């Protein structure tokens, strides 16, 4: 709800945590400081289009038969074809989230490969690494020993690359999302559903015969109970990745929204309690925001840890063997 002259908090929050075709940093007066991102669209009627999103002028103009749909339409904020009013066939634009994902991937590769190269240069008798490589070794060995090897005791080497990658990816993107002006990656359900889908596929493709038997025709139960348990277990096959998705998505999104809401108190009280009240509430709001930021760093680690731990538990369960 927007009163005259007052900040529209809901719109601002969704603007910050949502996706867009340009990377908006701030508004100085009336001009917005934003970096336009490439638009790459294939439409059945007009073929390939590749141009910078600055041609859209923040959604005010159309270009080459494409425009950004206005608020209130079904495709609000996304590119539609002016002629048909529908989405083009293939929209592979580098949006803010895609750019954020690419930056996070490059950073992750640099971090991990950079740390690994240190080990290649030394032999076994070298002293323990310090600094960045030491931190990476500490985290990797903690996750490998206490999470991965503990839950997947056999064939650990097959699943370690995926599990370690998922841990560091989620941790890094959670932390990156806390920087003001960054893309909200893990707070986007498309990203978390993809990660959960990876876990789902890995768990079920490598499931042993004993695992599938436990799911569908569990020999340890009385025969009359097995059909019911088969239905329940089949449903739980899908609820597990669903819960992985929602847990990560909602935790990170809620953290970002809470942080933005607390900061917006500064702007809301500028109108409702001008002068001394505004200064007082600004101090409170900044202190609360610092506390929330610290909490979000902790949540970033915990969510990455819990996702990795639950994934390794599911993988470990799918490697079940018959009890002889």
């Amino acid at each position: 709800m927007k009163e005259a002259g007052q900040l529209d908090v809901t719109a601002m929050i969704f603007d910050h945590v949502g996706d867009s075709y340009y990377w908006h940093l701030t508004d100085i007066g009336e001009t917005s400081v934003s970096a336009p991102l490439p638009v790459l669209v294939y439409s059945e009627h007009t073929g390939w289009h590749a141009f910078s999103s600055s041609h859209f002028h923040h959604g005010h103009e159309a270009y080459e038969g494409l425009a950004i749909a206005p608020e209130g339409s079904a495709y609000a904020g996304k590119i539609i074809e002016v002629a048909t009013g529908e989405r083009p066939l293939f929209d592979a634009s580098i949006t803010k989230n895609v750019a954020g994902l690419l930056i996070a991937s490059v950073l992750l590769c640099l971090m991990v490969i950079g740390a690994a190269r240190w080990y290649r240069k030394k032999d076994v008798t070298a002293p323990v690494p310090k600094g960045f490589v030491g931190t990476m070794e500490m985290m990797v060995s903690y996750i490998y020993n206490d999470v991965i090897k503990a839950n997947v005791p056999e064939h650990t080497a097959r699943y370690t690359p995926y599990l370690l990658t998922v841990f560091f990816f989620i941790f890094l993107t959670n932390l990156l999302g806390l920087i003001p002006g960054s893309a909200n990656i893990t707070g986007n359900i498309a990203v978390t559903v993809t990660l959960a889908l990876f876990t789902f596929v890995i768990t079920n493709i490598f499931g042993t015969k004993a695992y599938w038997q436990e799911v569908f025709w569990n020999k340890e139960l009385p025969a009359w109970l097995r059909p019911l348990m088969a239905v329940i277990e089949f449903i739980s096959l899908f609820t597990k990745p669903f819960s992985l998705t929602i847990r990560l998505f909602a935790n990170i999104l809620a953290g970002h929204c809470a942080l933005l809401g607390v900061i917006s108190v500064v702007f809301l009280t500028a109108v409702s309690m001008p002068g001394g009240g505004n200064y007082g509430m600004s101090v409170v709001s900044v202190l609360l925001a610092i506390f929330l930021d610290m909490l979000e760093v902790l949540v970033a680690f915990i969510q990455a840890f819990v996702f990795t731990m639950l994934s390794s538990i599911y993988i470990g369960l799918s490697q079940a063997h018959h009890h002889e």
Partner: protein
Amino acid sequence: MLGMILLEILSTKGAAALGAGLVAVGAGMGLGKIGSAAMDSMARQPESISKVQTAMIIIGALVEGVSLFAVVVCLLAS
């Protein structure tokens, strides 16, 4: 009397806000129980503090996950 207040809130502000409040109650109660059990066990046996702390954080994340499902539903309903 309480029912009338409830109907009033539901009709004007919407059920999503009421749902979000209930989620907070549920999450608070669940996490409080986890924390209190963890405190008791840590006080009884100080050697197991780090193990209990790890388990407490993991279970806290899981319980919070359930409450966040409800938050997402409330967001969708609003």
